[in-house]
């Protein structure tokens, strides 16, 4: 793949690339992923570059086809730098790739947990800021640039503090070619996309190949612009049984900007441990954060976490204690108090019940609504997939399938609505009357734009119409 046409990137001739320029530009292109290969970080700037080259080499067909303007760039760089370092470091590259792939579960976890895009204010290194601004300018050129950009910035956030050191060491190498890069930033973007693809959780090589051949900007959804900030620990959907989780990722971009302060998500189990430790140390007043921290022996817990938690704990204990004491001190004048007490007692209790009922209802509905929202999203995705499949196999089939799919969705929703109603009526106190529900039903406006009216369908019991494939 040797093309000799002069690249916009390199103003100088090809030969000069194979000297410092190549390594510099490569390091400019790949500063981020080298941070991911953490254990190679200490002194291996060259092998990192080379391993990344190798990754590129594995992918040229895919990427080149989607970005024809850069195909020359790829070939050129490779050819020029291949003599430079590849041969020498081939074996080490092999090892590193293996290391990298075995590392990837860990990395991908931290990267998934540590994604954040805070373009203006949270970026520490100048590199990112300068490339960020240049990226903004370039975004109009390629649609996928917008996809690439945030994830490019993601990585420093999601990796550990070591990354900042790497930037420091490479900054000189980075800034120089950066200025030279006219259109070269595109090359950078493209390279970044590869790298982020490689390191993303859903590193889907075959997917990329398939999608790239279609030249869609869409394939890597994982690189959408609003990769949402998630500096907090990655919490699975179920209640975690492990005692608390702490963000292993970037501490740099916490919104409070307190050094070393990472957001901590407490769990009941962790709190139990905390309380035990506090009690051992003689109570909330006497216990010190340091002592508690030591006793708890929880990995990753910092003294800041303990400190703030202890403060909250003390506040929580102090308030009820004062109210308790004051109520004990009230001298009960028995007779008056008891008759009055009885009346207000009942009223209070009843009011509490009512309040409780409303709250319960709200909670129920929130759960149902949330489940519905999730299911609708899932269903939507499924429909989309079906739709795309049908598109490929012809328009007639398309019409048939999508309308039945839509019906299926309505069935799903209606059955969920039936579910919802049943659930509500089960939890219902005796107050409910049939009239009320009928009136409520009438008050509902019939939703517009829906061909079949839901109220009639509501009578149906759970029915899932199987989708025709």
């Amino acid at each position, binding site marked *: 793949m040797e093309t000799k046409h002069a690249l916009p990137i390199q103003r100088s001739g090809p030969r000069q690339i194979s000297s410092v320029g190549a390594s510099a530009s490569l390091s400019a292109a790949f500063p981020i992923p080298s941070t991911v290969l953490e254990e190679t970080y200490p002194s291996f700037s060259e092998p990192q570059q080379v391993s990344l080259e190798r990754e590129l080499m594995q992918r040229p067909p895919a990427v080149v086809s989607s970005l024809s303007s850069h195909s020359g760039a790829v070939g050129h760089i490779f050819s020029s730098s291949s003599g430079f370092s590849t041969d020498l470091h081939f074996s080490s590259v092999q090892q590193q790739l293996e290391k990298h792939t075995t590392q990837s579960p860990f990395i991908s976890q931290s990267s998934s947990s540590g994604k954040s895009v805070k373009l203006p204010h949270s970026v520490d290194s100048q590199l990112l800021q300068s490339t960020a601004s240049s990226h903004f300018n370039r975004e109009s050129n390629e649609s996928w640039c917008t996809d690439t950009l945030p994830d490019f910035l993601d990585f420093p956030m999601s990796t550990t503090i070591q990354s900042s050191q790497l930037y420091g060491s490479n900054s000189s190498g980075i800034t120089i070619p950066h200025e030279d890069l006219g259109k070269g930033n595109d090359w950078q973007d493209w390279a970044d996309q590869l790298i982020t693809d490689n390191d993303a959780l859903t590193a889907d090589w075959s997917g990329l190949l398939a999608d790239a051949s279609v030249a869609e900007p869409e394939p890597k959804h994982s690189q959408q612009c609003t990769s949402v900030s998630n500096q907090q620990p990655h919490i699975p*959907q179920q209640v975690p049984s492990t005692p608390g989780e702490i963000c292993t990722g970037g501490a740099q971009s916490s919104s409070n900007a307190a050094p070393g302060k990472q957001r901590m998500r407490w769990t009941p189990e962790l709190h139990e441990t905390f309380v035990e430790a506090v009690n051992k140390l003689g109570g909330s007043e006497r216990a010190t954060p340091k002592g508690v921290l030591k006793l708890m022996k929880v990995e990753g817990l910092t003294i800041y976490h303990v400190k703030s938690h202890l403060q909250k704990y003390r506040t929580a204990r102090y308030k009820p204690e004062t109210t308790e004491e004051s109520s004990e001190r009230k001298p009960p004048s028995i007779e008056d108090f008891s008759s009055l007490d009885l009346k207000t007692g009942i009223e209070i209790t*009843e009011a*509490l019940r009512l309040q409780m009922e409303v709250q319960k209802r709200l909670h129920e509905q929130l759960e149902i609504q949330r489940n519905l929202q999730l299911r609708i999203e899932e269903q939507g995705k499924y429909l989309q997939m079906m739709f795309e499949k049908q598109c490929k196999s012809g328009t007639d089939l398309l019409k048939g399938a999508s309308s039945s799919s839509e019906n299926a*969705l309505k069935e799903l929703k209606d059955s969920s609505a039936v579910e919802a109603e049943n659930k509500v009526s089960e939890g219902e106190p005796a107050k409910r009357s049939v009239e009320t529900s009928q009136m*409520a039903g009438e008050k509902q406006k019939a939703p517009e*734009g829906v061909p079949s009216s839901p109220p009639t369908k509501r009578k149906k019991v759970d029915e899932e119409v199987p989708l025709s494939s």
Partner: protein
Amino acid sequence: MKFGKRLKQQMDQSLGDWRDKFLSYKELKKMVNLISSKGALEYDAQFLNLLDHEIDKFNAFFIEQEEDFIIRHKELQERISQVIHKWGPQPSHMEYKEEMTNIRKQIVNFHGEMVLLINYSNINYTGLGKIVKKYEKRTGGVLRVHFIERVWEQPFFTTDLISKLVKDCETTIETVLPPSTATGIFHEEEAAKAIFRNSVAALLSMQEMRRGSSTYSQFSLPPLNLPDFELIQSLQLISPIQIHHV
């Protein structure tokens, strides 16, 4: 009624220090309108930035509250067991009754606050979904699906723990409430009123939001049919009269 209005209503009715923790829906909507269909990219970046910032805001607030709830929950359990242990054998004792009344109030209020936090989570999630849908409509991007998936992973969306605590409260209250009698009126406590009012508002607004609208589509939630809709609505009317100050 439009989501923006409903959101504002809820915010107004919400507990004081929560008010500025909700989604800045109006602001985001303005931004979306600024974005031209070609994609004026300065606004794009700004928009996405703001989204991220909002999510940060939610996460921070949510995690703080959650931590508080965990602590309170434990304290409540402790207190209950203490009181029962101390006066359990003689439940007619004056102090026991007082304590218990206090505890019941605390449980119910605690329960209410947690449910409101879940509501907070939900309404912000809904708002985010809507705003990103609008954005996608303007720019024709394919942001939404993946954005939503990202949101699912966020701490503020993972409300399972809070739900569990809520259910816990519900069982606890059953054990400490005396058997029920007939009617009742509203009690005076300020916090309880605020929570109560907010819950009622939340329920009603949920129902409102899910009514048919011009943009009803396959992605919309089905209408919410509250069986005692009338009762709940009347609660909303009555409670402001009873309250002396907000």
